[in-house]
């Protein structure tokens, strides 16, 4: 059964389109990621799915219920963690959690097993006001509050934005254990490297879905050879490659530059000769497998 289904969803604000004919479905028990920059439409889409915003066009259902007609029922069955911290800053950690449990007619004890791994990390601070928590602890409390009524589906809008690499890694480990508890997770992120942690992802940009697939299938379908290069002068390398007649795309990636050639024009020998004659020293070239960011930029260029 599909836990979340969206069909031809569109939404505009004052005639400025935010979502353009969005279609996708999420299977039960899946971690489904929306990967895209700010302004892609991720938050609008999440707000429609958790019944906080009406679509202009199209239909969507969550656990088989319609997001417009059955909004009251949906609210009992989904957990939502908005991008902006929206717990009560003046209530303590424990008061916030009790509040959300009470609203859903349950208790912390009843569903403690679900939140135990996460909540136990902040339980030593349960008498501290939420407003006085550090960023990582707020994130854990928000996730606990979104889980306390044992939802079927979790919607997490950019839970890892602005969070350091270590905390991000821990957060994704928590999501994995929730998945094994049978919860369907829909999550959004601007960090391309988090795509590989999802079962399937939708790449989204300017209100359009560029691609939906398993992350490994997206990279497998890149469709071009990808060359990583470096030399003692990366800036010159970037501009020399950009001026090369067979160049299709060239982007910096850390200490390397990623290069693709126009259709069937990848000739490493010729390229090496060209770069050496341009005066590059310590030139290094190797064929590599693309990552999600390579694919995202390639898809952006195709649609632009």
């Amino acid at each position: 059964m599909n836990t979340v289904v969206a069909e031809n969803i569109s939404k505009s604000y004052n005639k400025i389109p935010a979502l353009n004919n969005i279609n996708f479905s999420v299977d039960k028990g899946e971690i489904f990621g929306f990967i895209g920059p700010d302004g892609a439409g991720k938050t609008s889409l999440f707000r429609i799915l958790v019944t906080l915003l009406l679509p202009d066009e199209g239909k969507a259902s969550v656990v088989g219920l319609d997001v417009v007609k059955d909004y009251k029922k949906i609210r009992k069955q989904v957990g939502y963690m908005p991008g902006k911290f929206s717990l009560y800053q003046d209530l303590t950690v424990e008061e916030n959690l009790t509040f959300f449990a009470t609203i859903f007619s349950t208790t912390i004890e009843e569903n403690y097993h679900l939140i135990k791994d996460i909540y136990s990390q902040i339980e030593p601070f349960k008498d501290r006001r939420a407003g006085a928590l550090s960023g990582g602890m707020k994130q854990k409390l928000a996730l606990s509050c979104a889980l306390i009524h044992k939802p079927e589906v979790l919607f997490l809008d950019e839970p890892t934005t602005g969070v350091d690499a270590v905390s991000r890694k821990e957060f994704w480990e928590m999501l994995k254990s929730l998945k094994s508890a049978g919860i369907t997770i829909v999550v959004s992120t601007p960090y391309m490297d988090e795509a590989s942690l999802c079962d399937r992802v939708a790449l989204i940009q300017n209100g359009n879905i560029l691609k939906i697939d398993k992350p490994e299938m997206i990279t497998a379908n890149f469709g071009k050879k990808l060359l990583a290069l470096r030399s003692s002068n990366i800036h010159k390398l970037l501009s020399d490659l950009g001026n090369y007649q067979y160049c299709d795309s060239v982007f910096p990636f850390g200490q390397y530059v990623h290069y693709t050639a126009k259709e069937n024009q990848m000739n490493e020998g010729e390229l090496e000769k060209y770069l050496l004659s341009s005066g590059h020293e310590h030139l290094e070239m190797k064929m590599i497998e693309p990552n999600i960011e390579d694919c995202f930029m390639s898809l952006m260029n195709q649609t632009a």
Partner: protein
Amino acid sequence: MKTREPIITVSHLFKKFGSFTANDDLNFTVYKGEIFGFLGANGAGKTTAIKILCGLSKPTSGEATIAGFDVYTQTNQIKNSIGYMSQKFSLYEDLTVYENIRFFGGIYGMTRKHIKEKTEQLLNKLGLQDSAKKLIKDLPLGWRQKLAFSIALVHDPKIVFLDEPTGGVDPITRRQFWNQIYEAAAEGVTVFVTTHYMDEAEYCDRVSIMVDGRIAALDTPQNLKDTFHAESMNEVFIKLARNAVNNE
């Protein structure tokens, strides 16, 4: 271009809040024209250190100079010598492009004539001549970011502090932004940058990684990867930061 001329010097710098030591004996030098990455987990003490370097907070003990000015006694001169941009605060959304430039130029004490010249230069360079009268909130995020960076440089500061400048933008815009950073550094501006994107750490000339208030490592990205036997800066970061006490 990186030189050997020190522009930021920090020596035995401590900052304590009660019994908590946020900055614990920091020592480093940043050189003119360098792109210096300042990394650390949330809670490692980066913001505390940046506030001191920008002249907004005084150390508990130790020495630091910014563009030759002392962080205890010459904070106004420091503020005139630096530019600052973060993702959270950059431009006024309800002012136009032109009004923002005039506002920040005015704050830095530039003359009207100088502001006018700079405005033309800046808009030409960014190709935004037709957008001078547009409100910031009507510009796409990528443009806002490029403009915010240019405005942080409008008074020709010696150093520009970038606090997570690229959060949330698409990968192509992010790279265009780094190109702007390179250009500024090539013209001799020192760039002091924090980021959570570890691939961006590799664009820096040198990177320091803070853990629990101390600088746990400081070197070129390549040397850090070699030292920690890591494939990427992400791996270096995780190896250093995962055992931290204060990383929440």
